[in-house]
């Protein structure tokens, strides 16, 4: 299996992601944003960073990069599993591959911390991560406040598209456990084979880095299968 890691000018978590995949003995290849041929890739990760400096709005320019059109085709035609992390999540929302959008943190400040997230809806791409599973994962972002248009939240939950929510240490989704003002504490969402999350699993590969739960999440994603069109 080969995982493609998309790299935009200004991506800065690309090597962390490559290292994490190497630690998991997975073959991977970095894909520069101008590439349009994604053949031979079985999965794609959009890593974190500040693509194009994010001076306009996080992910807004990257969403229109040539590689994104090719990615969109592969998702539509072959249900290619795609994982967007932090800036990658923002890009997927801007491209319309995921519902909703990410706005400035409620504090107006960048925030770097270790958070607990709870799996809200089990996803076929993540075997072994049952609903209710708790993970400790680092966040580091300025625009991580997830939002959906008015009235859209109910549908998101009904369609099992809410993947992760920020929770307290006991796994209860509480207002005070919300680090960035996301609606309903949402930390990650999915649509079909596309999943996005603000926390950085690639930074949580070893307990000596603060948590090894990112290893668990990524291993599960690498194992997970997806029926065509699911």
């Amino acid at each position, binding site marked *: 299996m080969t995982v493609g890691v998309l790299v935009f*000018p*200004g991506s800065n978590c690309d090597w962390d992601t490559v290292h994490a995949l190497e630690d998991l003995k997975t073959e991977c290849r970095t894909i520069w944003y101008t590439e349009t041929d994604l053949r031979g890739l079985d999965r794609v990760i959009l890593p974190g960073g500040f693509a194009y400096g994010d001076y306009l709005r996080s992910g807004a320019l990257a969403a229109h990069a040539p590689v994104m059109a090719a990615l969109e085709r592969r998702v539509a035609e072959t249900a290619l599993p795609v994982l967007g992390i932090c800036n990658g999540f923002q890009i997927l929302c801007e491209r319309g591959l995921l519902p909703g959008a990410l706005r400035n943190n409620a504090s107006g400040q960048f925030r770097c911390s270790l958070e607990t997230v709870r799996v809200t809806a089990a996803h076929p791409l993540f075997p072994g991560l049952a609903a209710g599973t708790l993970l400790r994962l680092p966040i580091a972002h300025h625009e991580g406040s997830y939002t959906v248009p008015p009235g859209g939240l109910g549908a998101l939950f009904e369609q099992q598209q809410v993947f992760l929510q920020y929770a307290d240490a006991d796994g209860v989704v509480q207002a005070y456990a919300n680090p960035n003002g996301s609606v309903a504490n949402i930390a990650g969402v999915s649509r079909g084979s596309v999943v996005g999350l603000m926390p950085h699993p690639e930074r949580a590969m070893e307990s000596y880095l603060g948590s090894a739960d990112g290893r668990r999440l990524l291993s599960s994603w690498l194992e997970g299968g997806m029926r065509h069109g699911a």
Partner: protein
Amino acid sequence: MEPSAVGLTEAEYQTIADLLGRQPNDLELGLFGVLWSEHCSYKSSKTLLGWLPHEGPAVVQGPGENAGVVRLNDAWDIAFKVESHNHPSYVEPVQGAATGVGGIIRDIVAMGARPLALADSLRFGLDAASRHLLAGVVTGIGQYGNAIGIPTVTGEASFGHSYRKNPLVNVLCLGIRPTGRTIGAGGARPGDQLILLGQKTGRDGIHGASLLASQDFGAEAETMRPTVQVGDPFMGKLLMEATLAAVASGRLSAVQDLGAAGLTSSIAELCYRSGAGADLWLDRVPCRETGMTPYDIMLSETQERMLLVAAVGEVDDLRRLVDHFEIPFTVIGQVVATDRLTVWFHGERAAEVAPSYLAGACPRRPLAAELSTAVRQPVAADPSPIPLTFEPDWLLQVLAAPDCRDREAIYRQYDSTIQTNTTQGPGHDAAVLRVRGSAEGICLAVSGPGRWAARDAYAGGAGAVSRVIRQLATQAASPLGLTDGINAGNPDRPQEFRALAALLAGIADAARALDTPVTGGNVSLHNETDGEAIWPTAVIGGVGRHFRPLQPYRDAFLRVGERVYLINPDPAPNLGGSVLAGLLGNLGSYPRPDLPRDAACYRFLAEMLRAGIVTASRSVGDGGVLTAIARMAMDSPSRLGVRLFLPADGLGARGFGEGSGQVVVTVGDGERLEGDADRAGVRVLEMGIVVADAAVSLEAGHSYRWDISRLRRAWRGVPGEGEA
């Protein structure tokens, strides 16, 4: 043009005319103006910096290059340096701080090293305007560091009225490069091409170095805003990757970044260090606006630019390599064998001067012969405050004091986990980084206690160095090198110059006694507004080799029943220079460190940690012994507390004095520690025992007790707790 318009004195102007054998034209005068500024020439401090020890077994590159380099192991060298961006941060806090971060990162990249970590040291006043400046500076540091993808892994902040109009923003960057890589500014050879890489040149920051950074502030500070540059971390990231790729290709002879004084400084330093000259074709420099004059182009401080130097035959391959990053790459000149820099503009000779005059001939401030001895003399008797009573509220007040308070509100705004090497981040005495593929890791500490230098700059300088080595010792790390960020007032005023000299004498003596060389740094003078100077402040960064980076040594109470000791207790504790003394309104002089005693203590501590006898330790610093103990309790993962037994006599000074060289430790086997300490000639004082009760309790004639929850509220700045 008048000499004063470029910041030069009449005497300096005359020296220049003598060197040239003619009057300089306006452009030449401008070149001398920036390079002979205090900021670029170090004319007031260079002789004093000669006092510092620069040699050591780990030193690969000492001062004189863009950054110092020390050897970590057979595979990796570490490049590191601290730099200040004080004046710009006062004038425009967000961009001033952001460009400071960008500048120090480029220094590390110019050494061919990939930046792994940043650390910040901040000094601000206590008024509302200062809080606003601090918020802006923290935003700026985060904005640049977070976006370029370099973690800020440790730092410190401290406060005092003297910083009100002169805040200090010092940032350290550390990077690694493979051993054997020797790229720097000294390798240019005649015939080599000068390649300008990065941002197009604009009219920003002209005279930033000579006028903004090298003069005192007065009422006109507001009008200085146009001299501040704007940072672009996105371009910075592309420039960093392109430069590192070019270095790794082996096609470069030299690299020099463009920082203060832009192209002028970059070319002059490169030529001077390479023993060469250059022809510069200024009309080829890509500019952001039309109509820029040679003067504008030479003095612009536009950020995110780098000068690459390569043989003619390498240029096309380099261009192909760099094209991937989509940034401008332009040949703007070539190296010549003689000591002359000729600036050409559309075929006209716009200036011609010797690089050695620009970069090496600035007259230095003469030193009085007895200065070196004089500044080491004890300062005039300043009564050392020794409180006769002990007030239990002092502990809450000290924890809530601006200099001791929890720093999470700052460091949470910095990405500390990117690059996935941080095994111990902010909130501890020192940061610990792993290095992929190496057993050894890196330990990094930074400290700049201005309060300790307020009355006795020598004590402050020595105390700062000792504190950094102590912080490395709490990780049992072997010190490899130091970087010094010197911040002081106007050197033209005798008392400020003397304080600067005393500060450096203290640093020099401590670095020698603690056997750690200073491999580079930065001097920022003229931190003075309307005649009021800052406390002389030495921001010291220390880098050590960590032997088990995946398991940093602990700094909290871990097991009930363990004994709590103070290693190297101050034999005559007093409150001089301490946080509590400041709160009580009589700061006093910081006690001069007993350096041989400190050295023995740190060697002993490292040994005891590695042997597993000491199970956790914390350096005594701001807030003294009781503050260190409170921190160990507040950080206890299993909510343990401590029961202390101390003599009632002198309790206030023992508990809150900040005398050098002290470390609080926990041990499972107290007799073993005492025996080993005895053999090592180190004094230890048993203070108490770790208990399951979540409180700090103290028997000292009276019984005192502080609940940890209450201590934590004070430390976190919850209103109503610990307010004096």
